[in-house]
């Protein structure tokens, strides 16, 4: 019963000094809101990143030269044509692991500007083999078809474009049969559009759009993009998603070391999973750093609460004397002031939580990512602010509780 009384008392004391109470809460509000917004932004970003990797498929990986290992092994090493991958290597790899490798191709990539009439567009050109869209789930065909086997075999200048790109260049969506001029190896060649696809929006496409990088992803047969020697630094692979991806990657790299007669660890595999781990690590470090800043602001907020509670105890010395003379015990006064400190900081915590969620929602809506608010974090934040109030309220409350009733009654 005394608890309810104390809560009433605390609220009326806080109300009596609205501005002062608000200023006192400010430290807590800033601390809690930064914790909430950072953890929400972190969780949202993690979610978006993992969505993106999910769309790539978790068995997505690429085989590459292990450059950091090379730098360790040799002081001065220049890459030879033989170190790069050729179509024979891809075929050998597929032959060796027929059960696990679903898709493997030499990786080719190019940036080029294209022009239709007076309209230009920047293209990010990916070389693919047949069946690519079976694994990259972000590609949804709207018109025509994807790059097929005969396009690849014949190294034909065929292209599949994004629906946005079609709209920009031609002013319509169904542009199958039209020709796009593209620079490959210094030559301008005309590529015939065989298909139009729509891309599922991902974090990177949204970030690119937000930053004004309006480069359109288009797909061509990888064979049409290969250089004269027909080699590439990477092999793009979709492995078996039901088996351990890392182990598969190691097996592929080891096999490649063997058939190309290279020392151990000459080749390596980067997996989507591995990349995700790196991004998560970066996000983790960022969270810890900003968490530390938030902790400092909570500490400052707590000291603010202690300070104002000490002022309050001094101001209300006489009241404390009156209460004691009417029968308040030491712990009655202690709880009265503790509850006031806790309520002050919990109100700050609640305002901070709402503000933090608001900031996260605003930030995420600009980036176009769905907001992830973790309920546990919200509960912890409010509990933590209560803890701050309890901890920093204890000293002033003890001082109040220990006042001598006669001294307190005489206090002017």
């Amino acid at each position, binding site marked *: 019963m*005394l608890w309810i009384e104390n809560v009433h008392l605390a609220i009326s004391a806080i109300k009596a000094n609205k501005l002062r109470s608000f200023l006192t809460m400010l430290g807590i509000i800033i601390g809690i809101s930064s914790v909430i917004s950072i953890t929400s932004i972190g969780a949202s970003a993690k979610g978006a990143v993992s969505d993106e990797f999910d769309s790539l498929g978790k068995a997505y990986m690429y085989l590459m030269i292990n450059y950091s290992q090379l730098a360790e092994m040799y002081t001065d090493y220049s890459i030879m044509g033989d170190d790069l991958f050729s179509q024979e290597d891809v075929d050998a790899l597929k032959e060796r692991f027929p059960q696990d490798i679903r898709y493997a191709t030499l990786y080719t990539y190019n940036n080029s500007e294209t022009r239709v009439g007076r309209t230009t567009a920047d293209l990010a050109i990916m070389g693919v083999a047949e069946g690519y869209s079976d694994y990259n789930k972000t590609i949804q065909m709207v018109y025509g078809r994807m790059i097929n086997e005969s396009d690849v075999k014949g190294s034909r200048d065929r292209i599949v474009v994004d629906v946005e790109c079609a709209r920009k260049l031609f002013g319509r969506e169904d542009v199958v049969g039209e020709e796009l001029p593209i620079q490959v190896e210094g030559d301008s060649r005309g590529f015939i559009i065989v298909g139009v696809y729509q891309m599922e929006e991902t974090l990177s496409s949204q970030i690119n759009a937000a930053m004004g990088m309006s480069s359109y992803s288009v797909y061509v047969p990888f064979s049409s993009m290969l250089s004269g020697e027909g080699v590439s630094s990477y092999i793009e692979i979709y492995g078996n998603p039901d088996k351990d991806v890392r182990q598969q990657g190691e097996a592929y790299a080891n096999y490649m070391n063997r058939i190309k007669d290279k020392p151990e660890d000459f080749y390596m595999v980067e997996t989507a999973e591995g990349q995700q781990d790196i991004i998560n690590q970066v996000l983790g470090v960022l969270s810890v750093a900003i968490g530390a800043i938030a902790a400092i602001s909570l500490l400052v907020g707590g000291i603010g609460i202690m300070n104002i509670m000490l002022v309050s105890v001094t101001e209300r010395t006489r009241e404390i004397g*009156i*209460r004691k*003379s*009417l*029968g308040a015990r030491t712990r009655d006064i202690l709880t009265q002031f503790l509850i006031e400190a806790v309520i002050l900081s919990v109100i700050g915590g609640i305002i901070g939580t709402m503000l933090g969620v608001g900031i996260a929602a605003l930030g995420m809506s600009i980036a176009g990512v769905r907001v992830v608010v973790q309920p546990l974090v919200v509960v912890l934040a409010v509990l933590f602010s209560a803890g701050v109030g309890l901890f920093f309220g204890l000293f002033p409350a003890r001082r109040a509780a220990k006042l001598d009733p*006669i001294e307190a*009654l005489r206090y002017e």
Partner: protein
Amino acid sequence: MSEVIRIENLSKIYENGPLQVKALDQVSLNIEEGEFVAIMGASGSGKSTLMNIIGCLDRATEGEYLLDGINIKEKKDDELSHIRNANIGFVFQFFNLIARTSALRNVELPMIYAKLDRQERHQRALQLLEDVGLADRGHHLPNELSGGQKQRVAIARALANNPSILLADEPTGNLDSQSSVEIMEIFQRLNRERGTTVIVVTHEPDISQFAQRVLTFRDGKIIGDTRKPSNEKGGNSHAMD
């Protein structure tokens, strides 16, 4: 009549550096239930110190003090809080109502510490305010009340837990003569009708006229203890004329 207060050879000594100040010097005193006692004396005579000790706000250096047969010396601070709550009603010179808190809630306060339930203390607080003639002022804040009204709220608050003694320290010190008479009459009425033991500390002889027994202090000692004839008991409303 039973004994409410029994004081034997009570001394209070303040250590002020090398100096010893004897605020009370070997005081012995009994007060019976239902008495109306005035304690007179100049400032520094020891009357306030005695008041604080009787009110269990302070402890004696030497000697015995029994309140309702309870030996105060042996009690811990929190036990003294309980005794103040249950056995003593305080009325102060400066009213000492809690600011920004309605008259009603001020009266409820001792009952909150006595852990009475909400409904019960609310009813009782309303009744007590009515008894002191402030039935319609329950929701007023202290700064909306006159001095006399404030003191009446304080009396209602002092009576909240049916204390065995009502202890008033210069209760009229901050009031005009009209209000002073009203307050003293309330004390008289409580003493007469309810049999409440009332102890009033004052330096005004006019105020002491309301009591049946007057104790006079000087230099920490009782130098006078006079009782009015019993036929005049409680009939002193003309004293301020």
